[in-house]
């Protein structure tokens, strides 16, 4: 009885705690991802300069900053996508649960399975049905059990809040869905691989306000099962959906902290000026 009574209080404290996390506390707490002294280049141009950041598990972290500040580059460094660009280079470490994803012994495919990605524009496979879009990754990874695939497809579509809208038309082409639905289909496709971290690169920039708000609700719900990092140009979206915010400028991480603190009382003048729309 006593335990039952205590449970909600503990949960409440956890929720409150998540809103008052400051840099030092992020530092001390267990981190899902640790970015250590990461530098990134495109040819001779340095796009990231000594980035250090710890990402708390089951949280939503927003990367904000003006165009060209390195947000997307940093995001792509977190699942080894940056190195796929010709001429791109990275130094430093990215630790996923303590494991350096850039270790030579690590297969990048495994990393992409554990750290999924959703892009700016919805990109369902054009020739595949809704069902096959979600199941594509599983099949590529050798899953053959039809019942298992069916269960994962359903679970992923439910996780992406799309199941109720498409459950009777799973054989329809993925591209027949609306833009917002296509983006949720892409999220379902990423979820099907049961990632631990989900990277989202401006996931609502091509969507109307209603579809955007559905994605935002989804992000909020998904934090229970995955750690989310989102790149966004929309300040209000960062303020609405994220627990932590990182502000970047000219390839440097200027300020990182609890979203509430960043938007109400930023420590750095540069952050204040950017989020207030005084430059950028």
């Amino acid at each position, binding site marked *: 009885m006593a335990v039952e009574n205590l449970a909600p209080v503990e949960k409440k404290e956890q929720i409150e705690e998540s809103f008052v996390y400051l840099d030092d506390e992020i530092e001390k707490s267990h981190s899902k991802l640790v970015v250590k002294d990461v530098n990134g280049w495109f040819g001779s141009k340095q796009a990231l300069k000594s980035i250090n950041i710890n990402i708390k598990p089951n949280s939503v972290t927003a990367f904000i900053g003006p165009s060209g500040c390195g947000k997307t580059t940093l995001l792509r460094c977190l699942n080894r996508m940056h190195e796929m660009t010709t001429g791109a280079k990275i130094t430093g470490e990215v630790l996923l649960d303590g494991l350096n994803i850039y270790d030579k012994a690590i297969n990048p495919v495994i990393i992409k399975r554990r750290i999924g990605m959703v892009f700016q524009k919805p990109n369902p496979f054009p020739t595949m049905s809704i069902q096959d879009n979600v199941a594509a990754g599983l099949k590529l990874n050798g899953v053959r059990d039809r019942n298992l695939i069916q269960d994962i497809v359903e679970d992923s579509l439910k996780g992406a809040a799309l199941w109720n809208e498409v459950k009777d038309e799973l054989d329809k082409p993925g591209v027949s869905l609306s833009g917002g639905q296509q983006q949720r289909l892409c999220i379902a496709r990423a979820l099907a691989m049961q990632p631990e971290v989900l990277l989202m690169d401006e996931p609502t920039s091509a969507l109307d306000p209603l579809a955007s708000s559905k994605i935002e609700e989804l992000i909020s719900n998904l934090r229970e099962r995955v750690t989310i990092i989102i790149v966004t140009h929309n*300040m*209000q979206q960062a*303020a609405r959906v994220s627990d932590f915010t990182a502000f970047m400028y000219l390839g440097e991480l200027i300020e990182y902290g609890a979203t509430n603190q960043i*938007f*109400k*009382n*930023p420590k750095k003048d540069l*952050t*204040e000026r950017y*989020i*207030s*729309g*005084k430059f950028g």
Partner: protein
Amino acid sequence: MTRLLDIGLDKIKNLLVDMSILSETTVNMAIESYEKGIAIRSKIFDHSEKLRLLQLEIADFAIELIARYQPVATDLRFLQSCLDISYGFMRFGRYAYDISEVLETIGPSHKCDTSIVSTMALIVKDMIKLSLDSLRDLDKDISPKLYVMDDSVDSIYRNFLRKTFKLDSEGLSTTITINDMKCYMSTLLILRYLERISDHACYIGDCVHYIVTGDPTPRK
């Protein structure tokens, strides 16, 4: 380039300046009317009403700016504080009206010892001036000074309250005249209103501290 939000913020700042001038004038008028025994309730009522309407105007406009521009950081803290500060100015007007009403209800004060009220009024007027200065200059360091002055105001009020109770407990109430009783009542009420004005002056100082630093004052 001027942001659209800045145009709105400037308008709110101007409204706050209007309120600050009017609220200071209104409190000064009320104190003077008590000290000189001149009843000017209707004039103070007009000022108080004007302050109330200005407060509503600021609240509406601040909410509109939040909805339209979704300000953050200092801009957001400023708008949030504007709501509190304008409420404070509105309360200055309301307490000034209450003071004027004491005079109307209980009668003129020329037969009373007005020295205690005058002593407190001097401090409170200084507090209002200081709080307005802190707002004008966005001076976060005025807040602690206001709290020291507020302690003096509280002390004067509490001492007078104790003195009043002591009179009653010693059975002296039978020996005091109706006029003495009126004087005690009016003094006690006016001290109470001035003490509340003093509190609101402190809150204005707190708001300025919050706008500048983002932190509530240590006292809070």
